[in-house]
């Protein structure tokens, strides 16, 4: 059947057709939809892992147990899973094993734009790179065949434009792949110095065979056109190049490690000028140069950011990039960056932190938006889980300055992903720092995936929820306090108190994600235009429902987006912001005088 699928849906489809039985992932843009699409197939066991390392390990177990298994993550997720990745290369597989990494050139939703193809080279693994949804399906199926024939995990790399673009896919039927029998094999599956030494030559030998296979695999092919220009290209860059130079000769690479050396040499000999067009690093280019072939690449094609047809055409045709015609120079447009939703539970905590003028070691999630104006209440954001450790380290080296003036802040999903071990470190090494866990019981940033704190699985079934209070206590934190982040007074007071305490403490801001739960917390609020003196104070909590109205800077509240959370009302010193329905007991509930 012909259907329109995104690259991610096509990988899921390919996995299904390949007889896949087990898939595990940790969400991360642009990879998240793969597992969500797989979850719809009853034949496959699909589950969210608490982090990427666990996803790879659980899938490795499934593979050793004889099943075709898949682990999925975004590019930085593979850093987290790098430890099992490198050794799995030595162990090999039983059932086929594919690890998908979705890179994010252009950093549409990431903190860096690392090129994960280097992992294939470093871990000595075959690497496949689809350039559209049809290939995403086809390559996934082929990846499992390669994995089983060569006894190796296979890396499948997409980029945002492949994962999130949709194109036509011809689908097929699922094949039944029975579980492979399990055999106990000490020299292969128990990696020790003695067995590892036996496995390394096997890996090198496998790489040799894969190199030969790369030429004949059908994944890499030549399309002779005009011989004046030959283009070696891969992934989405192929589509851009083809768009702007339909008549050139192409060596299209679907398997980019190990490279088809023979094919590359033949192709290079057949053309006058040779280009490598690839996004990000000169991964192919460097290897082509190593073969002693002269080639034009990164001196023309930018290695920073995403490519697009305009950039590729500028590189190939030696044109200047088309200047935006007229408007950007003439008209300055306000940006429309994402903001915390109206009524988001994270907002109150950042308001309090700003008020207390605290140094905040931040982390990754929706709450990272608390770093932006008007809240501006975050000092660092490095990688998932880093907040806790960085907070500890910063206080350790300068307790006079930071001990009572610094917190670490982290979301529930991020804490479970990799904050827990740092909290153990803090207790073990007698650190004294306050950690705030923003527990909205969901992985909101990536589109609301369930996690252990939700107590709900990928398939929306009930499971045992992780108790963050008990966990913190078990780690050795004696001061664990829950707060209602909508109560600004309490939130501010508790944070102040805990920062003063002579031992480490955990504050759990306990409130669900309002967007996910589609919550209305109270009646819609309005601004009494008579009482309001346009002091701008309420704007400083940055609720998008609060916008400038007809009376100059005096705000009005958009009744369609306000969810009645009461936070703006608590900020207003003149009680000019009021619930439309005064019978609602918000005022009492928030402990305000009224």
């Amino acid at each position, binding site marked *: 059947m*012909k*259907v*329109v699928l995104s690259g991610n849906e096509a990988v899921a489809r390919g996995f299904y057709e390949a007889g896949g039985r087990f898939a595990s992932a940790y969400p991360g*843009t*642009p990879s998240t939809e793969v597992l969500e699409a797989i979850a719809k197939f009853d034949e496959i066991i699909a589950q969210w892992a608490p982090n990427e390392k666990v996803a790879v390990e659980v899938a490795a177990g499934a593979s050793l147990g004889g099943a075709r298994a898949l682990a999925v993550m975004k590019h930085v997720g593979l850093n987290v899973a790098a430890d099992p990745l490198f050794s799995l290369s030595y162990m090999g597989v039983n059932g086929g094993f594919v690890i998908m990494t979705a890179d994010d050139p252009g950093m*549409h*939703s990431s903190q860096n734009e690392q090129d994960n193809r280097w992992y294939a080279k470093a871990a000595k693994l075959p690497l496949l790179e689809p350039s*559209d949804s049809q290939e995403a399906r086809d390559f996934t199926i082929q990846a499992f065949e390669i994995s089983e024939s060569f006894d190796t995990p296979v890396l499948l790399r997409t980029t*945002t*434009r492949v994962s*999130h*673009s*949709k*194109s*036509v896919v011809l689908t097929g039927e699922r094949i039944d792949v029975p579980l492979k029998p399990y055999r106990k094999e000490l020299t292969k599956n128990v990696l020790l110095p003695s067995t590892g030494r036996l496995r390394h030559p096997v890996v090198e030998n496998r790489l040799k065979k894969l190199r030969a296979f790369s030429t004949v695999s059908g994944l890499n092919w030549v399309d002779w056109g005009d011989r004046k220009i030959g283009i070696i290209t891969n992934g*989405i860059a192929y*589509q*851009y190049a*083809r*768009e702007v130079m*339909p008549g050139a000769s192409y060596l299209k690479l679907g398997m980019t490690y190990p490279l088809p050396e023979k094919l590359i040499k033949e192709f290079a000999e057949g053309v006058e000028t040779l280009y490598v067009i690839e996004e990000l690093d000169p991964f192919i280019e460097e290897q082509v140069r190593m073969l002693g072939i002269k080639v034009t690449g990164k001196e023309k094609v930018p290695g920073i950011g995403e490519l*697009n*047809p*305009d950039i590729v*055409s500028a590189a190939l045709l030696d044109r200047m990039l*088309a200047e*935006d*015609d*007229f*408007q*950007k120079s003439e*008209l*300055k*447009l*306000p*940006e*429309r*960056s*994402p*903001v*915390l*939703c109206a009524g988001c539970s994270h907002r109150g905590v950042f308001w309090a932190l700003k008020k207390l003028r605290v140094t905040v070691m931040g982390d990754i999630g*929706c709450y990272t*938006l608390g770093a932006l*104006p*008007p809240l501006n209440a975050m000092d660092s954001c490095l990688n998932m889980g880093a907040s806790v450790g960085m907070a500890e380290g910063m206080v350790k080296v300068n307790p006079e300055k930071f001990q009572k003036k610094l917190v670490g802040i982290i979301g529930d999903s991020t804490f479970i992903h990799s904050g827990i071990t740092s909290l153990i470190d803090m207790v073990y090494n007698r650190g004294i720092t306050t950690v705030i866990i923003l527990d909205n019981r969901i992985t909101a*940033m990536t*589109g609301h995936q369930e996690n252990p704190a939700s107590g709900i699985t990928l398939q929306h079934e009930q499971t045992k929820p992780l108790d963050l209070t008990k966990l913190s206590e078990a780690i050795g934190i004696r001061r664990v306090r829950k707060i209602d982040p909508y109560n600004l007074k309490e939130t501010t007071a508790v944070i102040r108190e805990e920062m003063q305490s002579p031992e480490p403490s955990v504050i759990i801001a306990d409130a669900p994600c309002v*967007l996910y739960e589609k919550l209305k917390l109270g009646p819609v609020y309005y601004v009494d235009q008579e009482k309001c003196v346009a002091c701008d104070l309420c*704007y400083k909590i*940055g609720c*998008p429902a609060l*916008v*400038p109205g007809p009376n100059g800077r005096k705000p009005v509240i958009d009744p369609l987006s306000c969810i009645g959370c009461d936070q703006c009302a608590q900020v207003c010193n003149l009680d000019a912001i009021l619930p439309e329905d005064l019978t609602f007991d918000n005022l009492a509930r928030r402990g305000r005088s009224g």
Partner: protein
Amino acid sequence: MAITNVIFTGVGGQGVLLASDVLAEIALRHGLDVKKSEVHGMSQRGGSVISQVRFGEKIYAPLVSLNQADFIVAFEKLEAVRYLDYLKPNGVMIANDYEIIPATVEFGDVEYPKEILPVFMKKTNRIILENITKLAEGLGNPKVLNVIMLGILSNYLEIPEPVWRGAIKTRVPDKFLELNLKAFQAGREIRETAPGIVPQP
């Protein structure tokens, strides 16, 4: 058949992605090759959203080049201007005359652009600029904005009406079908705002 390039744009939550999905489905049903590209990211948090659809006999790049969009279908005015560079000279601009003020306007120094029509007219005189949100609300549900926009677009493409209606059917729940088909029809009845106005030099 030549390649048709359509850019849909708007603000997270307005139904931009669904509209582009429906168009991609329509192109497939019409027997064409089609590619569509969008960036999800944080679109749910009120960010600017763009989705590009290209269809024709054979499509390579899923991205539209500068000055190559035959149509821009903008669900919000500011977003229409933001992607104007992509419109072909004298391409068709279909814009919802509706403002969603971005948060940056409140504490930044950049203002929401006031006069939009003259800006459009520097590039084209084929413009539809109407408050479609109001029209959608009038039909009973602001959510049908996206289907009205598709209705407007359908006037310009040589794809038979039943194909459009068929694709919409697969995308909306039964109980909303009638409303959506009505919205589609309402879109089909909308004509260019300023026919024949020649751009000022």
